[in-house]
């Protein structure tokens, strides 16, 4: 069995900044360094330009919404839009709905995936190869293909406009990807550790619970985060299953917003900033682990 290309340890605790291939012998010339920095600054500007624009628009006073100026802090900047979306609109409700749905489904998804992945990593059983192939194949199914049957199924079971249907659908859709990632990670943990525990009197499942799971905390965290982000950013499932005002998630709410207040695009911008900040912070905080999660699970040389 060949290990993953990027050992999970590189990601969990990023390998000491080796400085890449220029760390050792030669160093870059000053001119080359300047070109590199200029290129990276340009790339960073392109990456964050829309973000800066949104922040700027969110702070514009109502009578200057369509100005064609690009300063980060607009003339007459005001935080009125932030106050407005927080206290005068349903934004808090949408965020709350998204949070409840997302947390619930991420927990269920993680529980289901972590046990199945264990079976795929440590047991040989009939149907194992087929199972893994089917899990991969599910990643190829266009989302639009499942939306119609899921919608009809939800109508028949009277699960539209209810969080029951949403939680079930959201938690299961990310299970295949989670299983692949966790299985890849489990396989990098030496099986001898569990065998030692079994010699000491643990059953095999106890060894899984007491040895493998705690050792896999980083991978479990990544999978939880993946599921959380996927559910948090879901638009189409909510669009077909939810239409009642009380139950809207934030992606649906924002849409309403734009139709209702066609010209209030500073409110939309303010809401976008408020929604993005926690997600971006969470993402940046965990992005080192995200990489190792993808590579450890998906990449086997």
């Amino acid at each position, binding site marked *: 069995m060949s290990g993953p290309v990027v050992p999970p340890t590189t990601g969990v605790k990023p390998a000491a900044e080796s400085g890449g291939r220029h760390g050792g012998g030669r160093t870059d010339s000053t001119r080359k360094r300047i070109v590199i920095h200029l290129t990276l600054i340009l*790339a960073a500007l392109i990456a964050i330009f829309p973000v800066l624009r949104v922040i700027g628009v969110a702070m514009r006073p109502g009578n200057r919404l369509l100005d064609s100026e690009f300063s980060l802090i607009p003339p007459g900047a005001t935080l009125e839009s932030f106050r407005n979306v927080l206290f005068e609109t349903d934004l808090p409700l949408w965020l709350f709905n998204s949070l409840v749905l997302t947390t619930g489904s991420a927990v269920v998804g993680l529980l289901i995936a972590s046990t199945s992945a264990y079976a795929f990593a440590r047991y040989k059983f009939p149907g194992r190869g087929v199972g893994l192939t089917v899990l991969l194949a599910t990643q190829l199914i266009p989302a639009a293909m499942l939306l119609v049957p899921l919608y009809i199924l939800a109508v028949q079971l009277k699960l539209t406009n209810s969080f029951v249907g949403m939680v079930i659908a959201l938690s299961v859709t990310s299970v295949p990807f989670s299983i692949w990632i966790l299985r890849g990670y489990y396989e990098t943990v030496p099986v001898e550790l569990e065998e030692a525990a079994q010699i000491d009197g643990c059953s095999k499942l106890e060894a899984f619970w007491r040895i493998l799971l705690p050792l896999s905390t980083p991978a479990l965290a990544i999978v939880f985060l993946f599921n959380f982000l996927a559910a948090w950013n879901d638009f189409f499932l909510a669009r077909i299953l939810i239409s009642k005002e009380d139950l809207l998630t934030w992606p649906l709410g924002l849409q309403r917003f734009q139709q209702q207040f066609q010209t209030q695009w500073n409110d939309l911008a303010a809401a976008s900033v408020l929604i993005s900040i926690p997600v971006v912070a969470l993402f940046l905080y965990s992005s080192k682990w995200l990489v190792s999660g993808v590579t450890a699970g998906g990449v086997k040389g």
Partner: protein
Amino acid sequence: MSIEIITNAIRQVGLTLIAIAFIVAVLEGALYFFLVRLLKFRYAIPIMLVAPAAVGLSILIVYPLLWELNVSFTKMSLRNFGDPGFLGLAKGWFVGPENYAQVFTQPVLKLTSFWQLLGQTVLWTVSNVTFHVLGGMGLALLLHRKMRGKGIYRALIVLPWAIPQVIALLVWRTEYNFEFGAVNQLLAKVGVAPIAWLSDPFWNFVAMIITNVWLGIPFMMVIILGGLQSISADYYEAAEMDGANSRQAFRHITLPLLRPVLTPAIILGTVWTFNNINVPYFINQNELETSDILVSALFREAFQYNRYGDAAAFAFVVFLLLLVFTVFYIRITGSLKGAYE
């Protein structure tokens, strides 16, 4: 936002979680009784471990696919709406393989044929993945060195991946506005005439690609950067000693050693781009058929035109297309070798 709404939401989600736990417990209990106690089956434990996922996926993926397959042989639509039953036979909706034939002979929506959509999809996928890989590779190579501000550059460049996609797309759509959008205002500053990004077929397609390239480069960059870090510096030192220049080192060391990381990332990126429905849905605001790709046409055929039978057949054609491509690609590159051991 009232207390009543909040408690209702928490109660619904809580009850769902309890119900799921209960169903899993019953399932596991039954399996334990039959497989372990009665049959003393060798593979009882792995089956018990896999059972919840298997049941969940059967209900939410396998059953819907079978339902879809069934509908694809009927003329179910808004006019013929309801439970079709087996192949729609009882209701006289059965049309045999006609829907599949129509995919190739009639316009999928109003104007555009399957073949044109396929062309648009190939163009969309190839140009996006190419720019993703080239951009990601370039940035990763620049960042993979000892330098000041490396962490800051990385964090800023990763931002498009981190922002919730719905928000990013709403922002881009607004910025493509003919009069008030930032894109045209910036172009005006360098003396370029404004472009009708949202209504001109050609420029709308370009706008979709620009947006998606912006969205997708960070993922490739992060993956490639991870791959670069796993390559030992010893190789480069040895190559340098043998007199190789940096271009030769890239071609003979970096590229081959990146392949195990790059190939799966390209497969994943291709599948994601092919199946990307968010970008066409949000950026193609005026519903131009020339900006549709296969999956966005599929969504509209089902949810706007309500031609469920046609859409089901179309869905299977699209899915098979992607499946065949992926199997071939995996075979050729051998990228999943070892995954089943």
